[in-house]
């Protein structure tokens, strides 16, 4: 065989082998993609229905009772009024620039509100609601596992539902911890802190804490509370000093509104936390589907 013929035939054989290999590779990628898509479709039917229901009902449930600390403040408003109407407090305020006046009012408010009790209350709420979220996630995982088990029948070993549940829950927990670490690194610590909670409660406790260098007590409150309070005290700082009339009535009215605003803001915050949680759950199921497809679809 001459050299030219040899090179020609070797080239053709190589091209055929490459074509065959490429074909097998493409077929495997296509079959994997298709199976992954089917598995994700099965899972999303279940997960999305549940996510919609949770995003609709759970924020209001979580916010139930959040008005109680503010109702307590309203009942004790006389103490707060005495503190902020005391001549010494007023003199101090008048010496300060406007933004520091708000800080002083906010500090006085925090002394009456007992931030550590508010935080303990939020944690307990998150645990109660989180427990229910975890229970529902468990039910969803079983349903998804049942559907995947049916679809994967005859494609390799039996599908292990328990292992699937553990795997996706771990993936959700990883996403959650990554998010908490990112926030802490960016100087936005969350109520969750370093505590170990279950997934549902942890997701809800990613509510950011207030960030301030000046006020130690305020730091212990969630950011959404402080944001609403600041708006109120900016207003109060402007009007309460020279105002005659019933300070008790005026301030308790403002605090009552504050309680309602905080409750609405908390509902929004819980909605945001739930959207994140559902995103992580969906992502976890996608990863699990890809792993199943990779494990069960070969070249032939």
């Amino acid at each position, binding site marked *: 065989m001459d050299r030219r013929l040899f090179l020609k035939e070797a080239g053709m054989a190589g091209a055929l082998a490459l074509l065959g290999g490429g074909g097998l590779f493409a077929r495997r990628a296509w079959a994997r993609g298709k199976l992954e898509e089917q598995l994700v479709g099965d899972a999303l039917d279940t997960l999305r229905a549940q996510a919609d229901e949770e995003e609709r009902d759970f924020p209001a449930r979580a916010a139930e009772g959040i008005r109680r600390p503010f*109702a*307590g403040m309203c009942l*004790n*408003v*006389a103490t707060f009024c005495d503190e902020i109407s005391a001549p010494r407090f007023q003199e101090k305020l008048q010496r300060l620039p406007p933004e520091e006046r708000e800080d002083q009012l906010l500090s006085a408010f925090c002394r009456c509100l007992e931030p550590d009790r508010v935080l303990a209350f939020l944690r307990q709420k998150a645990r109660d609601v989180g427990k229910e979220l975890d229970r529902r996630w468990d039910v969803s995982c079983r349903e998804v596992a049942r559907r995947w088990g049916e679809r994967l029948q005859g494609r390799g070993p039996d599908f292990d539902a328990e292992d699937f549940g553990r795997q996706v829950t771990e993936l959700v927990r990883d996403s959650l911890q990554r998010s908490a670490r990112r926030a802490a690194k960016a100087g936005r610590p969350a109520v969750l802190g370093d505590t170990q909670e279950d997934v549902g409660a942890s997701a809800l406790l990613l509510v950011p804490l207030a960030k301030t260098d000046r006020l130690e007590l305020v730091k212990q409150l969630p950011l959404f509370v402080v944001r609403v309070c600041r708006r109120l005290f900016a207003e109060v700082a402007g009007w309460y000093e020279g105002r005659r009339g*019933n300070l008790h009535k005026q301030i*308790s009215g403002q605090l009552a509104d504050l309680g309602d605003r905080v409750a609405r803001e908390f509902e929004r915050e819980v909605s945001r936390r739930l959207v994140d949680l559902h995103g992580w759950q969906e992502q976890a199921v996608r990863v699990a589907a890809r792993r199943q497809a990779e494990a069960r679809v070969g070249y032939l």
Partner: protein
Amino acid sequence: MTKRVVAGVLLLGLSLTPLACRPRKAREQPPPPANRVEYFKQKQAETYLPNGRQKVVLDTVEETPDGRIRYQTTDGQTWVVEMKPTGDGRYKFGWPEPAK
């Protein structure tokens, strides 16, 4: 004569000094009012509460057997709240919770 008067005044001053410097009895705080229901009504007559600026319906205020205060708000909800004496003649109210 003048010396005697001066000495007398000095002696009197010296003898009265310990009296003025004696440790005073701490100022006693008035005890909290005995009638808790009346105290609550008096303090909360003008108070607004959350859930859309509710007010306490004063006629519904009563003490529960466990020493808490039960009251209704203008939206018809019933609440119970703890009252603890603060030692300065007043009470501190807890966080109200819905009555069962």
